């Protein structure tokens, strides 16, 4: 669990805004992992599996679960990142529209390329490029003088 707990936690932060929902997703994802019988080809394959299962679980939860007890963005980022500098960046990322957040996280933190993100999210590669370009512009706007690109 230690290997992928942080990954799942970050994806939950990008997708959800509730500690309770994050707990549900953890249980769902790691239960599926325990029940997964087919061997993974390698570590990258396993990581991609975790990303897809987590994103799907988050989407299902948001779609079907009536409970969306969200916490304010500031409180959420304060819980997630103790440093004020990190907090402002997280706030900027999490305030982006949902369609940009996954791509930003996967590209800037996990280091996936646009075609790889397209595979993970089931989107066209050009669409991913567009999402990343627009997200970068929005982040520059939000972070203002703090950010030089």
């Amino acid at each position, binding site marked *: *669990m230690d290997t992928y707990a942080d990954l799942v936690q970050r994806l939950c932060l990008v997708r959800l805004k509730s500690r309770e929902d994050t*707990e549900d997703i953890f*249980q769902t994802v790691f239960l599926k992992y325990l029940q997964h019988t087919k061997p993974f080809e390698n570590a990258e394959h396993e990581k991609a599996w975790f990303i897809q299962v987590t994103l799907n679980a988050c989407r299902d939860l948001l779609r079907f679960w009536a409970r969306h007890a969200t916490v304010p963005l500031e409180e959420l980022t304060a819980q997630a990142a103790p440093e004020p500098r990190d907090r402002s960046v*997280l706030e900027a990322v999490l305030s982006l529209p949902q369609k940009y957040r996954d791509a930003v*996280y996967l590209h800037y*933190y996990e280091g996936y390329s646009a075609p790889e993100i397209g595979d993970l999210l089931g989107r066209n590669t050009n669409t991913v490029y567009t999402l990343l370009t627009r997200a970068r512009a929005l982040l*520059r706007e939000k972070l203002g003088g703090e950010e030089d690109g």
Partner: protein
Amino acid sequence: MDERIRQAFDAVRADEDLKQKTLDALERRTCPAPRRRPMAAAFAALALVVLTAAGGLAYATPAAAVSVDADASVELAVNAFGRVVGVRCYDEATQALVDATPVLHHDWTQAAAALSDALSETDGATVTVSADSGHCERLLSDGGAAGLTCYALDPETAQAARDAGLSLGKYRAYLALSALDPTVTQADAGEMTMGEIQQSIDACEGHGYGQGQQGSGQGSGQSQTTGETTSAGQGYGAGQGAGGHHGQGHGYGHE
């Protein structure tokens, strides 16, 4: 910007409390017994609810009508288990009598016997049963075993009795009487007790038999020299009633 975003996300970690809660939950959910028990308990509870509801419905549903008739009449609704689930009286006086006689939820033969005692202290009551054929036979058998004088009435005739406002037993008696005396109406029968209807039936039958069997009794009597001829002679000599019937019986017995 890339580096700042990477640093910001790098600060996000799954805390130990979250990991432990997940591990505890997974342990509960992957342990076979706890997973099966709730399902088994749920199915058992569901089955219990369904069976209870079905049983309650079956218990409360009348499957037969039993009429106890003497000086007054009472009709019992009897379920498929032979238990009384409803009582109907035809007048207030009888209602008071029934109120003092516990019959609801009792075995119908016990209830009918108790009502028979309550409705008629001397002659006893007649019991008329109406139900589907198979069930009716079982009820008649149970009634006979309990020492009750039972008659069957088919469901269509039972419905006609209800339409006429008469108990099953009284309607059956009315049909018997009207076959012998067509001038008798349902209203007449309604105002008569079972004893009175039976007396009228006896009177009509006695009259008919006396006329019809007279020659037979007489001829037999003449041919016999045994004590039975006295009996036959008495019957015949008594006139048009039961004596004539006796004469016929003995006459045939010795031929």
